[in-house]
């Protein structure tokens, strides 16, 4: 089972790195960064506690907002070389 999952993932990664134009990859890198930042904050909140709650809210929600805006840019159905 895990075999097929691993093969799917490796196939996906190779397809991704070959067929995605580099400009989209830039945006994807940015998306990954935002995602990780938000995930780290959420992890802290789960592990250590919600004090101070205001900070958690502002950090997490700003990550979510930036992520959404960047996703909006990425899903534009433009020809790939035109940016």
């Amino acid at each position, binding site marked *: 089972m895990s075999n097929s999952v691993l093969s799917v993932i490796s196939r996906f990664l190779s397809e991704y790195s070959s067929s995605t134009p580099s400009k989209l*990859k*830039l945006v994807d*890198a940015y998306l*990954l960064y935002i995602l990780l930042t938000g995930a780290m904050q959420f992890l802290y909140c789960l592990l250590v506690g919600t004090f101070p709650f205001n900070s958690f809210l502002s950090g997490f929600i700003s990550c979510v907002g930036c992520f959404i805006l960047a996703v909006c840019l990425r899903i534009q159905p433009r020809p790939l070389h035109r940016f």
Partner: protein
Amino acid sequence: MAREAGLISLFLLALVLRAQALTPSHHLSSADVTRLKAFLNQPLEDLESAYYTIVGLSKLGARVSDEKAACQFLKSHHDPTSIDSLFFAAEASQALSDCEIPVSNETRDLLLAVVSEDSSVSQIHHAVGALGSLGLPLASQEVVSALAARITKEDNVMAIIVALQTASRLSQQADLSRILEEIEDLAARLDDLGGVYLQFEEGLEATALFVTAAYGLSDHVGMEPPLKEDQVVQLVNSVFSKKAWTSLAEAFSIASAAAALSDNRFHIPVIVGTQGPATVSHRQPTLKIQVTNVLSRPLPSASVVVESARSVSSKNVVLKQASFTLREEVFELNFLDSKPASGYYDFAVAVAGDARFVGSSVELKVKVSTEVGITNVDLSIVDKDQSIGPKSTKVEYPSKANGPLIADSHQNLALSFQLVDENTGVELTPHQTFVRLYNQKTDQEVVFVAEPDSKNVYRFELDTAERKSEFNSMSGTYALHLIIGDATLENPILWNIADIVLKFPDEDAPSVVQSKNLYVAKPEIQHLFREPEKKPATVVSNAFTALVLAPFLLLIILWYKLGANISNFSITPSALLFHLGHAAMLGLMYVYWTHLNMFQTLKYLAIVGSLTFLAGNRMLAQKAVKRIGSQ
């Protein structure tokens, strides 16, 4: 049949109304009258105040101290060309004995000329008053028509009152009915305050002048004023409620109203009050009542009858239709002849003798007090298991029992006594029947209540073992006192019956009894400030800060690997401005966090943001142009 039923119901209604009749709550006592006279008796400065002083005092039956000087003052100060001046001088001179103001033909013509529709009501009043006091003839019918015309134009309360006063100076042959109707209209304009007071919103002076004018005109014409009994009493309450008068005009109006109410043909308000407290006892068996008019002068024709005297507690009628005897202007009744029990009684008193009396049914609360005697006092020590017979001591008031009585925890202390009315022998149940035990050494005091049983014998039992908590288990000698008191007792009793030695079983109480002192400083309260929230360890926070910032490094690395560069950056001013503005906005965010408040931030943001927007717009437009151009 129906007519009889109607009459009976009317009679019952009249009874009910009579029972709820209002009685005057304010009047001028003799001290008030003296003060009013002193207030009015001010030195003569100008003509108007002289008028108030002289005429006001005459209404109260007093005279100015120096009449000749007053007359001279009037003669020298009056101005024959002024209507008001003539009025004041003429009226004041009438009040003085043997004072005549010289009158010339011009004066008379001037006064007569004022009587017309064109002068104000007060002008007409002054002219008519002056003409009357100076003994000059005038045409009453002309005055009436002028007044009637003026009243329709000047509809305020004071003008109509002045018109009433003017009408009372006119000849009785004239047709004054038009003016007379105004009394009823004015009475309708009075404000009822709580059912007790009736006055004009224009004030006390207006109300008092209305009373004077209404009764003056009614007496003159011979028709009863259309005021109900309750209204008259309410007017009395209003006019005499103020005992400190602010101006001479106000004092004059009160004096005029008092004179009108104490001597007119229709309504005389009656003031009924007891002389001294309304208490009757064996030493003072007579109830004394004074009946006066509003000026505190006795009414010669009055006779006082108590219609019923009802006991408040038992609702029995003790006395019916007994009349008071008049002795030296005070009405007396020996109430103790009816052998009332001690307590409070409601007296319904009626004053008769003159059909003009108003407020003549009065309710009085009379107290009958008596002396109490203690009999059959029995103090005994009873053993709880009743193996030994009780040792009982009989004590007579006011002596004390011989030797202290000893009671320990196996014994009860019992006290029984009876309270009787010394004068009638009836058993009494006063409000306060307390048994007090007082320890002199420790300053302890315990008070119990003795209760009567069904035969009105008071009993008190002290179970030493049961009650030891009240005594804090302090054994020792206690003085036993009996306290008897009541509002209707003339001789309250505090009697030291005996000394009791109480022995409590366990001496576990502290040797020194801390008196439950309420007034000692209480322990200080330490204020607990709100604990700051528990923060996680610095290590954890730092670790997670690093973790959160780490993805940024990852981003830089990835972008570098992907070959991101800024080679396409066209160095145009708008692009630079855009990026700088953007950076400034991020910097502003930081500064907002540390220094600013929302409003300042919004202000700066508006400036920076609009610049950034414009620059960004321009930059993007340029980029688009470049892109389209390169296609």
